[in-house]
């Protein structure tokens, strides 16, 4: 029985891949939100705020994150087929994996443009508007910067799955926002 137990443990280790312990380590979500906000602040202060260089940094950081997350998440899934299946996978499985809710609305013009709408985007929920959001310019700029990282994550994930595209985001009334995916 001891040998059996050892073998079972070995089997478990082999299935999960190399790791130090079998219990996953958890982290509080507010840490992630603070980190995202700080990343935006760091890159916009290093370069002139709103300059393309700051946006490029955040985008490439997000792309890398997206690739690595997708690599892990699709590990046990059956192979995805064409572009439509990949987009559906992003909306129904990858989004809950990242943000704990599915995409509320997906529209396409069948010519390579997809619009994904999230009515309550998790990373925008903590931003407090000073006045009506449409008129507050500073707020709009901040929201646009905060959305650069998720755009990058989405683009990295899609490109890693084989869908070469560009992703833009816009949010007229935070926390509602929509991500536009344009296939290349």
């Amino acid at each position, binding site marked *: 029985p001891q040998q059996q137990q050892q073998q079972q443990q070995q089997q478990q280790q082999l*299935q999960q891949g190399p790791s130090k312990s079998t219990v996953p380590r958890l982290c509080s979500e507010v840490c992630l939100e603070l980190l995202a906000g700080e990343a935006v602040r760091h890159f916009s202060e290093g370069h002139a705020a709103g300059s393309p260089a700051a946006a490029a940094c955040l985008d490439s950081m997000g792309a890398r994150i997206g*690739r690595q997350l997708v690599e892990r998440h699709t590990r046990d*899934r059956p192979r995805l087929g064409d572009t439509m299946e990949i987009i559906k996978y992003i909306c129904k499985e990858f989004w809950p994996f990242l943000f704990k809710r599915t995409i509320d609305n997906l529209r396409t013009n069948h010519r390579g443009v997809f619009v994904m709408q999230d009515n309550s985007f998790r990373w925008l929920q903590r931003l407090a508007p000073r006045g009506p959001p449409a008129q507050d310019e500073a707020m709009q700029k901040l929201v646009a910067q905060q959305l650069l990282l998720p755009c990058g994550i989405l683009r990295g994930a899609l490109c890693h799955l084989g869908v070469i595209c560009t992703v833009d985001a816009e949010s007229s009334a935070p926390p509602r926002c929509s991500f536009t995916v344009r296939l290349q």
Partner: protein
Amino acid sequence: VVQLPSLAIRFPPISSACCPHLGWCRMAQAGPACSIAVIGSASQPLYLRSFPGALTGKEAMDSQAAYRIHLVAHCALDSLEEKVLQKRVGEPADCFLGLLYPTEEHKVYGYLTNSGIKLLAVLDNAVVKDEAVRVLLKRVHAAYAHLASNPFFIFGAPLSSSKFDAAVETAVTAFGR
């Protein structure tokens, strides 16, 4: 050393920088001789490692054999792509593609991940169960996914990680049993 010019089309010239593990692993293991290859999404070789089996032993340890395995893996890429196109119709696609093609000396099994990474297992002609190879390739995939989560990992570069090597060795030993 025999020059194989056709390999240059898809694979760059074999050098220790490109494939640091091109060679025979010194540990013999019970069961069939086994080579594991990891090919990137642009068909570039990322990792190639051979494990001699109990039957082959020391006589087979020469660099020629390593190049032969490399060639077999290269040819298997074509049949892997064919098999992927075949499987489009019908049932949900699985990552494990099964036996790609048998030659006189080797059997090649393929595995295609969602991110375009291809895993190949080149076995000699001992009797093996498909299920065992599927489990072996799944474990190699798990090790690769773990390696890809490293912040310093460069996508598309040859894999050089001792933890990955150890994980592949463990998987192959478990397969041999």
